[in-house]
């Protein structure tokens, strides 16, 4: 059985429901089988799609503006980004756009972008139209989903979609941090070559300086 390990970072302004969305998914899907560290902002879960097991590591981030400078530390090495905004709050949508720009500026590896509009249960107070969001998502090459963490609408779909995309990603492109294991007989053989993994590791290590990352300086400028 193939195993794909992916890191998903959840980005979004404070109060858009990042943690709620994630916990909704985790609790609903996994609370019966395996208890992840509920209550923590870090989750690890397994999704089995067909014959592939996808291990998702979900990193929640602090959405406050003042912690924005630290975000690169979180989305470093991430395979997918869940960009959340609140459909009743236009600012959150704008802020989400800012995240996208930052990601495009700082991340050079393939990263799955997934724009998610939360709180569709409050559609009466909707400020961000579905068309606008969809249009934007398409413009950045991302997908758009609308969910309600409160009423549990479409949350599972988002994560399943991510899992699917990660499998696809692991199939087409080897040059990223997505780790794929193939269980052959009784021991795992790393499908993506170890050398490649080492390479990225080295690159990251060289640039791993708290200051540079925390200040949001791009990795590129540091390297050159």
């Amino acid at each position, binding site marked *: 059985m193939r195993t794909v*390990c992916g*890191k998903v970072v959840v980005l979004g302004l*404070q*109060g858009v429901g*990042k*943690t*709620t969305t994630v*916990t909704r998914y985790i609790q609903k899907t996994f609370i019966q089988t395996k208890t992840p*560290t*509920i*209550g*923590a*902002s*870090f989750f*690890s879960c397994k999704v089995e799609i067909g014959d592939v097991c996808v291990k998702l*590591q979900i*990193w*929640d*981030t*602090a*959405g*406050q503006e*003042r*912690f924005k*400078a*630290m975000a690169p*530390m*979180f989305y*470093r*090495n991430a395979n997918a980004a869940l960009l959340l905004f609140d459909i009743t709050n236009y600012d959150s949508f704008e802020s989400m756009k800012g995240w996208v720009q930052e990601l495009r500026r700082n991340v*050079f590896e393939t990263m799955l972008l997934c724009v998610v509009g939360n709180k569709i249960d409050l559609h009466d107070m909707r400020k961000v139209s579905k068309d606008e969001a969809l249009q934007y998502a398409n413009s950045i090459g991302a997908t758009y989903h609308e969910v309600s963490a409160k009423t549990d609408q479409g949350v599972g779909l988002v994560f399943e979609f991510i899992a699917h995309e990660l499998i696809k990603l692991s199939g087409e492109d080897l040059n990223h*941090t997505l780790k794929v294991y193939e269980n052959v007989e*009784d*021991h*795992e*053989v*790393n499908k993506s070559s*170890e*050398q490649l*993994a*080492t*390479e990225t*590791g*080295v*690159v*990251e*290590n*060289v640039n*791993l300086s*708290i*200051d540079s*990352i*925390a*200040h949001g300086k791009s990795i*590129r400028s540091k*390297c*050159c």
Partner: protein
Amino acid sequence: MTLPLSGRIFIANDNICLIFKRSYKYIMYATKQPSLRINQADLQCKEGCGFYGNADWDGYCSKCYRNHMEQARRKKLKQAANAQSGHQGESSKSQVSGFTKFEEKKRQQTDKKTKYFKSLPVFKKTSSAKDIGKPEKYAGLRQSNDPDADKLKTEFLSKYKYLGDEIRRDFLRFSDSFIRQILEDTNVKPVDELAEIAQKRYNVYNTRINSYHLYQQVSAEVRAELEDFLEKYTMTALYTSLFCPSSTNDEDKDLSIQDRIRKLTWVNAHHLDCCISETSLEVRDLVYTAINDLLGMDSVKAPQEKLQCVVKCCRSVVEVLQHCQGGPVSADEFLPALIFVVLKANPARLKSNILYVTRFCKESRLMQGEAGYYFTNLCCAVSFIENLTAESLNMPEQEFQSYMSGEMTTVSAWDSALVACEGMHQLCEHLSLLNNLNERNISIQEEKNKLMEEMNALKEDIKRKVSSVLESTPLVIKPRKSISVTDEKPSGGSLLSNIAIATHNSENIDKTKLTLDLTPCIKFPCIIEDNIEEDNVLKPSLSADLLSPFEQSFEGTTPDDNSILGLSKVNYDIDLSDLSAENSMAEALTPEKRFSPTPSYTPDPFSPVGTTCTITQQPLIPSSVPLQMTVQKEPQQIKDDFVAPFLEDLTRETAEETLLDKIEATPTINLPPPINPIKTEYSGFSKQGWKIPSIPCNTGDYSSLSSQPGTSKQDE
């Protein structure tokens, strides 16, 4: 961007190549080592210079090794300079991987070819003797004197004993070459390069463990464990040289952040928009736990252990938040809380620790997993603190500045809570102490009351017993009266005197006196009646006491004593029963003797000339005929007859003793004439007793006392 990067990669790959070459050679050498005994040529330098090689120097002699290293370094520098394009780097990389594979294969072949397998049983034979000591000898080329590392090593050797010598030796060989390499480069290369080397080593071992035939039987979990152990062991051994190395300014960073945090003490949870309720006691306890965990980071050595401390700390923070708000904790709340904890903890060498972990912890560990997440959060917290501005605290610049300069000071809830907490804590302690004391006081009171009751009961008991004893005594007196009636024969006034004695005795409530007075004669019936055990105990001791001096006194005496002694021995048993019937006499005796002895004796030693002597002689004479009579009448009288020394003995003894002795003496002598004659003899005693109370009336009688009643009467 890619160009310089690939250049780095190129260097890295070259490094791997070198490491491989070196380790390969080393392994070759080491595998051959068992055969040293066989082939002496193997001992010599690989360069063939004729000098002996050393395992420390990869089998070279010291000089050749230095040359070899120098060459390798130069070659590497040249290669680094030549590395121009990513393509080149890419190609060289592939070459390297090909080369490593080739090397691997070759090594395996050589392993088979050489005496490796031949030497294996040899090795095993020797190693079986000292299982742990052997690998140390082969692979333990100690550069590190770190006791923790040595501990880990022994732990490793014992923990993975089941893996067999091969794997353990391989592991130690690898880790030791790792350690050696890092140590060599410590002062030469910048710490970042060392970090790269370390990371590469981890990866090399990872590849090795997954491809080397030696590890084929090892399960995936154990492989992961071994990898972790490699990291732990090497980093513990290298801790002193890699943690906060002198080549970096880590220490300055530590100091600056410490100073920074100190300046920010005024920042409270409210400033951080963090929902920690600083006043809650439970929350404060949890925060303390988190702080402790974070502080613990500095005390452990391996990066993974440090990470574990961070994870523990963060979990505590999560717990705090759950306690404060309930429900799942989002990163929005978690990060401020963590910042708050870091600010309040102000851990020592925080920056050094973080940098050390980032440099030398295995990449994968930092990139993913809970530990990676929390560590990232910690890094965020630190960088937030470093770059904290008025804006980030949502306060006006001016206010921020005044806080920072110390112009404005807030009594932060945390500080005041600490102070209050201290006060409260002391208060609580004192209260509990007071409560404790109070309880003890109450219990003491209860005990006291109980004791009082007991004492009262005892008092009552004693009173009752005494009264019962007292009741028994008049019973005793009655027979005496009857005796006194018999006594009346010689003298009518004796009855009165007896009664007087009885009353006198009864007046003596003092128990001891009673016992003393009664023991020899009266007590025994009393005992039987009242079942007083104490008295039973007293009885033999007293009687023994009574007996012994008496015998002594008689020992030095005249042949007459023989009969007396013989009697005394026999008496002893019978006395009591005999006397029991005649208490009155004893009573009469005792008081009488108390008063009488001194005056009666004194005259005797001085001179036999006194009137008493003349009189005493008179009873003596009849005594020879009716023996008992005379003796009983007064031992003094007998003594008078005897020589002076005897009297002296008696006088030496205390009044009571003499009394008692005499009391016993009298019965002893009494025995031979059992019943009837005794009474007559007693009458003699009673007369004396009678005379004692009469002393106040007639003081001059003492001389006459010793003499016959008739004379005394005459005196009166």
